[in-house]
């Protein structure tokens, strides 16, 4: 029998739906497993599950049985001039093999040089040298993992004297040359745009839309210094209104995308995360409704009623396989 050699997945095929998801953090393990809120997917920091056993992996396995999963890394250090850390990639591969995530991501950044790691997402100078270097490491990591990576745009608090390439162009070239996808962090775009004084919507416009497979949303903190304000990407608050606005703009341009509510510090109650996810879902639903209205308007020369909008919206959902599965994610 040809199928006898392949082990069936213990989790079943669970693609990430184009809906909002939440981060899974230790403080919420039990509550999430008991309540199983209707969110599209869960995301965890890969490195938090680099241990060999115990509670973190136990709870992740339980949660994975009920939700699609995204693994979000902070430690591959893809932009470092050190060789790619094979041990780190191997630990990530072990997680990927065990939990079968739908998405695996890390950042456009570096964390280490000369074997010293700073546990921070440090900005790269956007030069031709850095571009070649980053592309080589992304290609190597994808080869070793045997799958596509998503690369996230960082929040930055400084620029380099020698940068010559705009960040969106840098990312676009990385996806073109490596086949990697992008994780567009809308909060990061907003934070960096405020810190460096660029136009956030122009940044979104410059993103290669087809490559964006996930969006991040989070809350920032405004630090006030004698010289002025600086926005810090702290992941410790509700999504701020200007970021929701930029998100609406992004969805209008890209359409629905898996969207994560990132919240890592000063964790709120689980239901606050779910509420934030519902807000993101509502923005995507509103976009669909408008898009359907537009389609309908073109077809019927403006005679569409609210009912027909609702109907076409339903049809659109069914036509999209990742959306049709949505009602069953949180079933037993």
């Amino acid at each position, binding site marked *: 029998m040809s199928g006898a050699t392949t082990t069936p997945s213990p989790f079943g095929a669970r693609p990430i739906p184009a809906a909002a998801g939440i981060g899974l953090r230790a403080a919420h393990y*039990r509550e999430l497993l008991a309540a199983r809120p209707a969110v599209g997917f869960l995301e965890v920091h890969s*490195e938090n599950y*680099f*241990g*060999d*056993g*115990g*509670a*973190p*992996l*136990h*709870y992740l*396995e*339980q949660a994975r049985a009920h939700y699609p999963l995204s693994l979000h890394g*902070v*430690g*591959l*250090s893809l932009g*470092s*001039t050190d060789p790619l*850390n094979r*041990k*780190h990639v191997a*630990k990530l591969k072990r997680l990927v093999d065990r939990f079968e995530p739908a998405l695996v991501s890390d950042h456009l950044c*570096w*964390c*280490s*040089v*000369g*074997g*010293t*790691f*700073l*546990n*921070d997402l*440090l900005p*790269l*100078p956007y*030069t031709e*040298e*850095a571009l070649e*270097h980053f592309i080589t490491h992304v290609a190597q990591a994808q080869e070793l993992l045997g799958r596509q990576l998503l690369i996230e745009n960082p929040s930055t*608090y*400084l*620029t*380099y*004297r*020698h*940068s010559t390439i705009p960040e969106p162009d840098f990312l676009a070239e990385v996806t073109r040359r490596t086949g990697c996808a992008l994780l567009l962090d809308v909060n990061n775009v907003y934070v960096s745009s405020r*810190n*460096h*004084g660029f136009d956030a919507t122009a940044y979104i416009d410059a993103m290669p839309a087809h490559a964006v497979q996930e969006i991040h949303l989070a809350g920032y903190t405004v*630090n006030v*210094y004698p*010289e*002025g304000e*600086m926005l*810090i990407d702290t992941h410790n608050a509700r999504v701020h209104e200007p970021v929701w606005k930029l998100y609406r703009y992004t969805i209008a341009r890209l359409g629905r995308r898996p969207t994560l509510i990132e919240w890592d510090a000063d964790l709120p109650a689980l239901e606050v995360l779910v509420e934030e996810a519902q807000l993101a879902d509502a923005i995507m639903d509103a976009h669909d409704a408008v898009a359907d209205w537009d389609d309908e308007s073109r077809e019927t020369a403006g005679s569409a009623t609210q009912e027909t909008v609702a109907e076409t919206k339903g049809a659109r959902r069914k036509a999209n396989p990742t959306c049709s599965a949505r009602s069953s994610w949180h079933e037993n």
Partner: protein
Amino acid sequence: MAPSLREIQQCFIDAVLHEQVDPASIVADGRFPAARHLQLYRNNVFESLTAALRAVYPAIERLVGDGFFCYAAHEYVVQHPPTSGNLHDFGNRFAAFLAAFRPASRYEYLPDVARLEWAWHEAFHAADAKGRSRAAKNMAPGAADVPPLDPASLANVSPEQYALLRFHIHPSARLVASRFPVAAIWEANIRTDDDVPEIDLDAGADQLLVIRRDLTVEVEHLGRGEYALLEAMSRHETLGEACKAALAHQPDLDLVRCLQEYVRRATLIGFSL
């Protein structure tokens, strides 16, 4: 000539770890002068690494206070920054660092408390006993494990080979010994209430087994004999050698009862000949 990426990264990391290094040759002036921009990263790095140490060493933080802890953590980060992107490994030298850290030299028990906290951290993330994770997958959290070592399998070993058996200790098991009552000090300082009991530092030495039973890390007191027994087994000594070491410390130790308990409670999870 423009600096290479390598030179930029080396300069950046030096400037983060050492305030006297000026990043102006690589960082552009923006809203702030270059050095102020870099300072934001310096703050992030020290804050996040101090938080990582705080998560592993809550009793040390409570014992020395937040201000002193931040000061010690800053020195530790400069001397022993992380060497991988896997933060679980970060802080492994904190006990040795504290032992050599002059400002803390009055508190002789601190390094041993740190050793206990590191053992707890390692036990928390250590591998499950073989076969556990799949079998227990659908069990509720806290459900009891089936001991992976079936006592009946020992029946196939002939008595003359007993002394040559090598038992396998649970992968999470760590042994900590101190001349101070570290378990009591640790216990009193991981609680969040304000009521810290007075502890007599001369109340005796501790020999401790730190082990994860199911999902919970336990800290258990051992007699000198049991400590020597488990310590020898964790070095993969034969049962004969381990028993010899145990009886040297405690001639009246009930070895049979010890072994039964270890198998029943999955302190020992297998054996080989």
